[in-house]
């Protein structure tokens, strides 16, 4: 189980890294690998070359000294230690003479023990040789030369400190170069991924705008033929979508327009007849009541349909003005219900300012309240909250709530919850919530329904605030 959880976590991590991050990472790792190999190779080559060069020049120097020494040793010069001392200061070089098993050194600090035994053996057998050694952490070059005839051997130990310092500087510069290359690689990756993803980002923005109802948004076709194809198909799809939606909206609008004038006549005429209600017998009066209520219902239905089709076709012109959220909601609630319902305001919500079409947003509030009354057994609570740039208008009821699988559907036209299948008297048109959804969308907001903690439904309208 542990292994699987671990796997799962790793899997998620991998999925969480976006294309952009991955490209950047790949470029950075590539640059790092490449620059590291270049650094290692060039360091090693430079080091080998520099050491070889130094060795050659020090060997030359040693042979010169050896020739000088050979003459003196042959002559049995007693000043040999002074000569050895004069060959070099102890810091840069030390000199030794091995004659018949006895060491002679120029300086006191020159300890023959630092000489490698292997080198001594080679020289005593009559061959010149050199070996890299380390004394007290610093690298040195030991060179041994047999002094022919005399049977003595001459050793010199040179400090390579200077060379070492040069190599260190070289190594540091190379490391800095590697780091810069890696960084540049990462930047190149980031930039390249941005280039690659820019058209996608544009498409995604356009898609979001279209989903938000702005069907006139199009993607600018890129110069690049590969990307232009994506843009073109995307635009073609949007064209088709817009065309189709506008056709639907035009149809609904045409139907509603045709219904409008006769309905206007009906509404007025019924009103005139209704004023003489008392002159009728009971059956006629009942018929008149039915006629009045149905004509009103029908007129409302046609108006709502027309309103929805206008928003869907993108031809609704909103009359926007700034209002105080608290005052607006309080007034909207007061004007839509006869009984008093107070609005719970959180402290910050009081000063929030919204940019709204007053008439439309008032319909949103009154439709939610009427929905709570007809399908939720009455309004339990209306509240206004303000958080991170949005205002939440919540209408809660004590009804049966809305099942999770119907929470999106109920905002579609003519869809009702299971609990309210039958059409009650004045039960709303089935357009109330979809009109809410359309109006809220036109305000760049969102509406959804959720469960109340103690049962019932909670409808939430989220709107962006101005201040």
């Amino acid at each position, binding site marked *: 189980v542990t292994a699987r959880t671990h796997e799962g976590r790793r899997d998620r991590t991998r999925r969480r890294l976006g294309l952009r991050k991955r490209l950047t990472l790949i470029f950075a790792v590539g640059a790092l690998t490449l620059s590291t190999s270049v650094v290692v190779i060039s360091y090693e080559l430079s080091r080998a070359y520099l050491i070889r060069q130094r060795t050659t020049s020090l060997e030359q120097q040693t042979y010169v000294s050896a020739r000088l020494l050979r003459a003196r040793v042959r002559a049995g010069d007693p000043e040999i230690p002074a000569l050895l001392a004069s060959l070099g200061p102890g810091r840069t070089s030390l000199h030794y003479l091995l004659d018949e098993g006895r060491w002679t050194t120029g300086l006191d600090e020159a300890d023959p023990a630092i000489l490698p035994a292997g080198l001594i053996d080679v020289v005593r057998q009559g061959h010149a040789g050199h070996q890299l050694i380390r004394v007290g952490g610093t690298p040195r070059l030991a060179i041994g030369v047999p002094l022919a005839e005399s049977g003595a051997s001459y050793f010199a130990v040179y400090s390579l400190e200077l060379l070492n310092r040069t190599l260190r500087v070289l190594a540091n510069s190379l490391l800095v170069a590697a780091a810069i290359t890696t960084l540049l690689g990462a930047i190149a990756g980031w930039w390249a991924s941005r280039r690659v993803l820019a058209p996608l980002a544009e498409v995604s923005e356009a898609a979001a705008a279209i989903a938000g109802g702005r069907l006139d948004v199009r993607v600018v076709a890129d110069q690049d033929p590969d990307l232009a194809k994506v843009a073109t198909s995307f635009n073609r799809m949007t064209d088709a979508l817009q065309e189709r939606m506008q056709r639907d909206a035009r149809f609904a609008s045409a139907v509603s327009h045709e219904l409008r004038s006769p309905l*206007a*006549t009906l509404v*007025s005429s019924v*009103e005139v007849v209704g004023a003489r209600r008392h002159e009728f017998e009971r059956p006629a009066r009942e018929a008149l009541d039915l006629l009045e209520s149905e004509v009103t219902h029908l007129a409302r239905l046609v108006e709502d349909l*027309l309103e929805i089709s206008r928003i869907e076709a993108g031809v*609704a012109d909103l*009359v926007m003005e700034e209002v105080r959220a608290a*005052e607006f909601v309080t007034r909207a609630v007061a004007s839509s219900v006869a009984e008093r319902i107070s609005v719970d305001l959180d402290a910050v919500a009081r000063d929030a300012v919204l940019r709204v079409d007053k*008439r439309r947003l008032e319909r949103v509030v009154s439709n939610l309240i009427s929905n709570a009354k007809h399908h939720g057994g009455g309004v339990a609570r209306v509240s206004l909250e303000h958080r991170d740039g949005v205002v939440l208008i919540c209408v809660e009821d004590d009804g049966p709530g809305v099942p999770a699988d119907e929470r999106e559907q109920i905002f579609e036209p003519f869809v009702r919850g299971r609990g309210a299948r039958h059409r009650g008297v004045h039960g709303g048109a089935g357009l109330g919530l979809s009109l809410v959804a359309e109006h809220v969308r036109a305000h760049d907001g969102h509406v959804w329904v959720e469960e109340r903690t103690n049962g019932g439904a909670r409808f939430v309208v989220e709107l962006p605030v101005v201040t």
Partner: protein
Amino acid sequence: VATRVLLIEDDEHVRASLRLVLQQEGSAVCEAASGEDGLAVFRRSPTDIVLVDIMLPGADGFHVCREIRRESDVPILVLTARSDSHDVVAALEAGADDYVVKPAVPKELTARLRALLRRANRAASVSGRVRLGDLEIDVESAQVRQRGEPVALTRTEFRLLCELAQVPGRVMSRETLLERVWGYDYFGDSRLVDVHIRRLRCKIEEEASRPRLIVTVRGLGYRAQPP
């Protein structure tokens, strides 16, 4: 005395039903089926209020409003479709006092008509004269003079001016003005106020684009500048 309403509407059935509603309210209705007819009837017979549809064949509602405004300050109520909400502003600019969205609900229509008539006949809440800059407002006789010259205002413009001039220096919100002048509640269309203020400024300000008598207070409303 019955209110004389001139009803200009091209759809015969709609016109007949509106006539019935108006007659039921006790008004005397003159009908016209076109803008040209309507103007002819208006010039021929005395009218207390004009109810005109914006969409008319030939001379449309805007034209009718402009023509009537040239010769009279009679209250004009326009009928407009909801889908043409910018028509509302155009109609108000052409001289309409208020509007009703079609299909007109009888209750709303009669409420609007009554509010308009009340404005026309209403005795002002404050009597006497009010001064605002170089304006002299005689509240009782509904006369406005600017440096002695009479200024022709419609009744709506006059009411609007009175509301503001009576409390110089105090900001009045659009909602308050809508309620006091038009009789709307909080949800009334505040473009009514904005357009009428604009028209009023054209008549009383020296430079309508830089008003000195009635100034806009951003986000709050309007204020008559104290002298």
